[in-house]
């Protein structure tokens, strides 16, 4: 009995961590190229509402996901233009994106609040793998998007650390002047990474509205976009460590329910605070750590690049 509760906790932890994971992977890509995008929350919300709307009208959740990805990419394009071409302050531009995205998603989703959705992503246990004790229950009894996120972790890791384009991308984030002198198109790479990051944030939002919830609520991300940004630091800009982080935060997120089922009496408000408190605590610990070890943030992060002004 006890054991099944813990299994359920860890298993739902994976699911709850998935939207954070998608968003964090996108932000890793963005920050690796030297751009800080604090608009994750806004991009996720727009992705969530777009995915929901499109799925409602097409009855195809994959179409919904696709359009959420497109919407996230378009939102990120605004940030890319502001921060790369107009060299705007990236903190403020990202904030603007979050505020705008919150407003836009509320505007678009006004009539969708509480509407039930039938075409959602449903769990598909993987034959064989799901029978492995413990691991099968925790990792392999989920919906298709969870499996896609597993694949993405490795693809992104391989891309960043084992391919020529990945090397160029990291060079752009560390030292754009050096990359530029080496003939790498800093602007193109930055644009591509910011947009790809937004697409993943859009997918993260769609996961909330099409698989996790599945429904639309104003502000349904509830700070998950910000947690994803914190997770990038926690994961030291490495996709593999981001997975551990998202799993950890996902588990904390759902722990409230588990504690209630096993009869611990804590007001639900405090349980809801847990992910935020943990994120802040972890952020402090990790930031202190990164100062002593040599895993600092990409050196050019959030500094606009201007060729004629070095």
């Amino acid at each position, binding site marked *: 009995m006890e054991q099944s509760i813990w299994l359920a906790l860890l298993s739902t932890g994976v699911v709850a961590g998935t939207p954070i994971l998608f968003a964090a992977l996108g932000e890793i890509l963005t920050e690796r190229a030297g751009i800080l995008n604090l608009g994750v929350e806004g991009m996720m919300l727009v992705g969530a509402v777009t995915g929901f709307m499109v799925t409602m009208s097409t009855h195809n959740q994959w179409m919904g996901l696709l359009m959420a990805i497109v919407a996230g990419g378009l939102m990120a394009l605004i940030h890319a233009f502001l921060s790369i071409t107009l060299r705007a302050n990236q903190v403020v531009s990202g904030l603007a994106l979050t505020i705008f995205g919150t407003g836009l998603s509320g505007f678009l989703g006004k009539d969708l609040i509480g509407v039930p959705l039938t075409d959602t992503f449903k769990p598909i246990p993987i034959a064989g793998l799901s029978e492995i004790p413990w691991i099968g229950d925790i990792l392999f009894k989920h919906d298709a998007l969870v499996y896609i996120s597993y694949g993405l972790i490795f693809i992104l890791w391989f891309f960043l650390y084992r391919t020529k*384009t990945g090397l*160029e991308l990291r060079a752009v984030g560390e030292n754009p002047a050096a990359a*530029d*002198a080496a*003939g790498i198109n800093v602007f193109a790479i930055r644009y591509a990474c910011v947009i790809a990051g937004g697409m993943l944030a859009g997918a993260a939002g769609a996961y909330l509205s099409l698989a996790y919830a599945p429904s639309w609520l104003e502000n349904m991300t509830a700070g998950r976009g910000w947690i994803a940004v914190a997770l990038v630091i926690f994961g030291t800009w490495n996709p593999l460590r981001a997975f551990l982080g998202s799993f950890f935060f996902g588990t904390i997120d759902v722990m409230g329910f588990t504690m209630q089922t096993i009869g611990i009496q804590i007001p639900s408000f405090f349980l809801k605070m847990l992910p935020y408190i943990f994120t802040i605590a972890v952020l402090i610990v990790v930031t202190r750590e990164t100062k002593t070890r040599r895993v600092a943030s990409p050196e050019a992060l959030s500094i606009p690049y201007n*060729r004629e002004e070095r």
Partner: protein
Amino acid sequence: MVEMINITKRFPGILANDRVSFSVKAGEIHALLGENGAGKSTLMSILTGLYRPDEGEIRIQGNPVDLQSPRDAVAHGIGMVHQHFKLVKPFTVAENIILGLKGIKEVYNLKSIDESVAQLSREYGLHIQPDSPIWQLSVGEQQRAEIVKILFRGAEILILDEPTAVLTPQEAKDLYKTLRKMADLGKAIIVISHKLSEVLAHTDAITVLRGGRSVGTVRTKETSEMELTRMMVGRPVMLETVKNPVNRSSKVLELHNLSALGNRGQFALKEINLDIYGGEIVGIAGVAGNGQRELAEVVAGLRAIERGQKKVDGNDLTLASPKQMIQAGVSYVPEDRLGTGLVPNLNAMENYLLKGVQKMPSGFINWKQVAQETAEVIKKYDIKVPNPKNPVKMLSGGNLQKLLLGREISGKPRLIVTMYPMRGLDVGAMETIRSLLLQERDRGAAVLLISEELEELFALSDRLAVLHGGEVMGVVDPHKTTFEDVGLMMAGKRMAAHG
């Protein structure tokens, strides 16, 4: 091999290059000589495709070319080693070399690249470990990595911007040996420099730029230091600094067995013992990155002292804050003038107030008085400030330094710490700064002068301490020492103190 014909390049408000012509043959080491701001860097940025000329033509092996981007320049066999290396610090040497290189597979094999890098570096006698990350390398090694990087791209024309600025005299000699070897293998080599002696000793031809124009090209064998100076500056220059005999008073600064950490947590200063007296200039020689910045910061109170003791005028100030150091009469002219010494977006008045504000007794600022004092300093040191209400980032390097030094000496300090005070200045501003430092010395202040220019240190210092690896290799009398001895100390050889 390369010809640049009538190149003109304008920036807002400046004519950086004015119909400059310049050509280099294969097998030749050609120096581009000129003061700071003469247009050398702009000209080379045009040749490397970073800027595009407004007028003029570039020919490579006789054919006109249009260099639209650095990529184009590389394709035409042009490679440049910038003064500030264009290396990605967390990457290895080999990773830096393949960055942006054509013909590398998307999923590359780093091992085989390491091998070909090692082979190429052996060919030219450039010792380098392909798999070490850049941040672990010394400055000299990083420079070799840069040279291998451009050779790997098949460069036939190599441009080096002030390549010896960061090297010891011995390392500089080795570098020129390597360059000669490359020239003998048929490469064309361009060295940008402002050091006369070095250019005279190691190059084949010299083109002098002044105020954005080319003054002329001479064969090195057929010219002299006097002639080159006249070409560079446009008038004969007093090369010797006239100095009053030293008149030492009491000990102002005492550093006793002092150790401090660098930014990466390693010991950047180890057991430093150094005293400076009032009325003398003590020079600090050394290759950049051997503890100079840490030393200056420790004295200014900006860096914590791990072990040992610091005293000013006999008072123990080991634990003093920057504010307390200022109050003790310690002035500091930092390396980073615009950003640390001065605030770029504030105006001259506000920058003048930067340190004085601590002395405002009431906590309120009397702007009228500040304006008056600023105007006095501007007038006294002949600082060209078109509008005192404009941000100081609009000022030229020389005027910035005069404003900074003018502010620092306005309170009649006991000790002045200056880091690279003449770097990047034109000859006129340099002369002003020199005479100001000597005036302060004659007034009785102690001066700690950190520099990478040996000529400057020998001319100004009364005593000269050499830093290597965060340790003092010795304190010598510059009148009784040679460049070579100091060079050996900069490379880590200890000398008995005399002086």
